C-alpha cells in the first residue's frame, strides 16, 4: 500500500511534535478532609509532569509542598458541621508553575512561622510543624494571603530553560 505523508500514522518520526502546555488556570476542588489530600497531590504531580522543564526531583518537591499546603488547608476548615472545600488552582506561566491552595479557615499569621528552621527541639517535641518550613524550602517562592474568607498559599516553582547539548 502506498504511504501517504498526510497520514499521521505514517508521518516521519523525526518531525518535532509541538507540546502545548495548558495556558489557562486549572481548578481542582476537593472536600476539606484528609483523605483527599492525596488526590490533590496526585493531580498536581500529573499536571506538572506534562512540562519537561520541571525535572522529576522538582516534581517530587512540588508534591510534598502541595501536600503540606492542602493538609494545612484541610485542618484550617471550620469545625462547624458544614461541608467545606479546598480549592487548588494551577497555572503555567512562561517562567513558572504556580499552585494556589485556598482554604475556608479563619486565617493565620504566617509570619509566626517565618524563621522556623526545618528541624528544632520544638518540632521534635511536637512531632510535627514541618509543613510551612518545608513549603518554603521546597518551592522557589511561598506567599500567604489571608482574608476573612480564608487563606491562600501560593507556591511558585520556576521552569528553568531546557539545556541543549
Amino acid at each position, binding site marked *: 500500500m502506498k504511504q501517504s505523508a498526510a497520514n499521521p500514522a505514517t508521518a516521519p518520526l523525526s518531525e518535532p511534535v509541538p507540546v502545548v502546555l495548558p495556558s489557562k488556570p486549572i481548578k481542582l476542588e476537593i472536600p476539606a478532609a484528609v483523605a483527599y*489530600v492525596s488526590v490533590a497531590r496526585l493531580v498536581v504531580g500529573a499536571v506538572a509532569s506534562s512540562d519537561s522543564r520541571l525535572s522529576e526531583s522538582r516534581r517530587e518537591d512540588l508534591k510534598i509542598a502541595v501536600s503540606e499546603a492542602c493538609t494545612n488547608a484541610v485542618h484550617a476548615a471550620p469545625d462547624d458541621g458544614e461541608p467545606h472545600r479546598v480549592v487548588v488552582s494551577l497555572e503555567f506561566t512562561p517562567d513558572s508553575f504556580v499552585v494556589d491552595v485556598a482554604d475556608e479557615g479563619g486565617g493565620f499569621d504566617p509570619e509566626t512561622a517565618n524563621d522556623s528552621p526545618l528541624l528544632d527541639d520544638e518540632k521534635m517535641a511536637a512531632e510535627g510543624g514541618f509543613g510551612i518550613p518545608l513549603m518554603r524550602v521546597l518551592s522557589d517562592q511561598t506567599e500567604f494571603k489571608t482574608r476573612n474568607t480564608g487563606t491562600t498559599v501560593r507556591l511558585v516553582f520556576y521552569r528553568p530553560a531546557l539545556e541543549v547539548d
Partner: protein
Amino acid sequence: MRGDARSERRRQHVNDWVTPTSSEHAVLLDIERTEHEGMSVLTVLGDLDVASAPALRSRLIEAVNSTKRGLVLDLRKVPFIDSFGLGALISAHKRTAAHADGAQPLMVLADPVGPVAQLLRLTQLDTILDVRPDFETARAGE
C-alpha cells in the same frame, strides 16, 4: 497451618484500613509485621501522609512496646512521605529512646528510597533517626 498464617496476615491487613473521622472514604496503607530472629520487621506499602500516618504511628508504638530485639521499618516501598509521616517516625523514635538500654538500636529505618530519603536528609532527621541503606543489614541488626 499455612492457611492460618495467611488468614492472620489478612486480618492484620484489614486492620490497617484507616477510616478518617471526617470522611466516609477509607485509605489503604498496607503494613505487614513479620519476626526475624527476634527483630520485628514492619513493611510499609503506600504513601505516608496526613491520612495514613496515624495507622503507622499506632502500629509502630505497638511494635516498639512488644519487640524482643528491635524494630526494622522497611521503607523500600514507600514512595512518598510528608510532615505527618515524619511525625510518626519521630514519635516511635522517642519511644525507642525511652526503652533503649544501649545494647541494640531499637528502631532502624531500612532503605528509604527517592523522595523519602531526600526528605529525611533535607530535614536532617537522618542525623537523629537510625537510617540504614541496606535492608538485609538492618534486619540482621548489624
